[in-house]
């Protein structure tokens, strides 16, 4: 989706008019949400460095957006948060990532347990093709032995309601997960991620592959979800970041193609009065 404003030099991103209390600067935080902190994180794919010494915090009850041009390391950063980065052969990480204060890369930490607490939704909806809608949402619960029988059904219904999908699929729970539209499939993936009750929800460009209506539905969903989770969203759409997030972090790859964190701050402030000239150049559309 292209930004609504034309790419003129003096034009800034138009921020949606908001009620005074709606965009938060201080965390509200549900009981289950966790704080994540990244300290001097660097990541490599083999010999090639992808990000350099990024330090950032993600607080409960808030949506934090990570924006930046293609190749700046946004996806790499978010994949380090749930230890999905290391699945790539030859990938490694330096620095610390803290979940409620504990380093998830400490020796002896089981990545599988981390991934249960930090859920992820991917760019292209990926429901399990051999499973029905119900089985898709229940997959995380069943495979981890977290619930059975009536409890399972209750949790599946709750997750689908949280993902604003229940009304649309309650009569066709046994149909295959792939029988839904793109936007519905993505909400199904969100329901699947929520079913295991994570503390943090990561979204890697969740609406890039969707049409505008589906995009708006998911953005509305995120606004409802942020009370109970810590939400981190990667997006290359600045308008979306402006609409959805409370905090924004801007990343950029230098001439050596290693991504760095340029600036971070409350969304309103970053988009109206950015401190770094590179941020201003990006959000006014001079590049990217």
């Amino acid at each position: 989706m292209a930004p609504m404003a034309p790419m003129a030099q003096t034009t800034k991103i138009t921020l949606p008019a908001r009620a005074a209390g709606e965009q938060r600067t201080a965390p509200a935080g549900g009981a289950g949400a966790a704080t994540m902190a990244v300290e001097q994180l660097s990541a490599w794919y083999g010999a090639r460095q992808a990000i350099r010494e990024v330090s950032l915090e993600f607080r409960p009850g808030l949506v934090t957006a990570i924006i930046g041009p293609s190749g700046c390391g946004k996806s790499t950063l978010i994949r380090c948060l749930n230890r999905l980065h290391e699945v790539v052969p030859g990938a490694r990480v330096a620095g610390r990532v803290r979940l409620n204060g504990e380093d998830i890369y400490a020796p002896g930490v089981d990545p599988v347990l981390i991934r249960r607490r930090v859920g992820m939704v991917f760019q292209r909806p990926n429901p399990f093709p051999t499973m029905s809608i119900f089985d898709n949402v229940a997959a995380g619960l069943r495979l981890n032995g977290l619930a059975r029988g009536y409890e399972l059904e209750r949790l599946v219904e709750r997750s689908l309601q949280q993902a604003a999908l229940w009304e649309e699929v309650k009569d066709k729970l046994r149909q295959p997960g792939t029988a839904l539209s793109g936007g519905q499939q993505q909400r199904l993936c969100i329901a699947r991620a929520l079913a295991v009750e994570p503390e943090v929800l990561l979204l890697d460009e969740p609406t890039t592959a969707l049409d505008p209506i589906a995009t708006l539905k998911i953005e509305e969903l995120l606004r409802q979800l942020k009370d109970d989770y810590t939400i981190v969203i990667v997006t290359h759409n600045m308008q979306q970041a402006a609409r959805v997030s409370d905090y924004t972090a801007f990343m950029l790859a230098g001439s050596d193609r290693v991504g760095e964190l340029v600036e971070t701050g409350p969304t309103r402030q970053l988009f109206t009065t950015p401190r770094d000239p590179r941020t201003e150049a990006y959000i006014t559309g001079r590049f990217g």
Partner: protein
Amino acid sequence: MAGPAAVSVSTYVPAGLQRAGVGGRFQKPGPRGRRAAGYRRRRLTNALMLALVGAAALLCVGVLVAVLGYTVVQGAGALNLAFLTQTPKPVGEPGGGMANAIAGTLVLVALGCLLGLPVGIGAGVYLGEYGRTSRLATLVRFAADVLTGVPSITIGLFAYALVVLPMRHFSALAGGVALAIIMLPTVTRTTEEILHLVPESLREAGLALGVPRWKIVTWITVPSALTGITTGAMLAVARAAGETAPLLFTAFGNRFWSWDLRQPIAALPLQIFAYAISPYRDWHRQAWAGALVLVGLVLLLSILARVAGARFRPAEP
């Protein structure tokens, strides 16, 4: 458009192409007609090569048609209900059938599946999911490829040494072991290839839910690839069903009904062999009928495998 303009449009050949000789009958004749001769020779060569290649293709198909056709013609006459339901009669008595051989082939193939499919699919899963780069994986892949080329009689001898000698008995079990070894490399490689086709996004979705690796393989990846794996298994079964040499000194053959796996068992290829080298015309006809049944069985399995493989691909999410 009328007149000279229309005429020139229909006979126009660009100058460059004219020099190359394209344009056929629209070509202007050259100073010694050389361009025309070159073009005609090229067309002749083209037609000749097309004819040769087409003939080779027809020969290929023709061989298949000839084998099948001859089997049908020779065997259809002796194929009747008695053939399918009776056991062989003593020498000299007319009639009788190969019912026990048909049942025996099915039993041997079932045994081969029971022994060979779990090992083959397991090895394929290892190669596809865990061993992309490890040295063990390279070794297993190499071994599977070599095993495909080992002569089936050698595999039969191996099963003889492994099963028949310790048991001091020919048996259906030994035949099953031999067929399992024959099925092994096909199933392994097909399973590995099919698992490579499963999109990475499915595994990532499973990982992101905090599901351990082995559960992702068992409950997400393999079910997605199940129809492809089944196709590979059916192809392996089709191959094993027609093997004769490995059964010669393992299953050994049997003239009677036998359901004891520790005893020799009849098999279609063995029975065909025994009848074909006999001096009795009645048995020759029955051998043809047996061959027809065997070919029909293998053909059916192969077609089913191709149809199933074409209709079901791992679905894209």
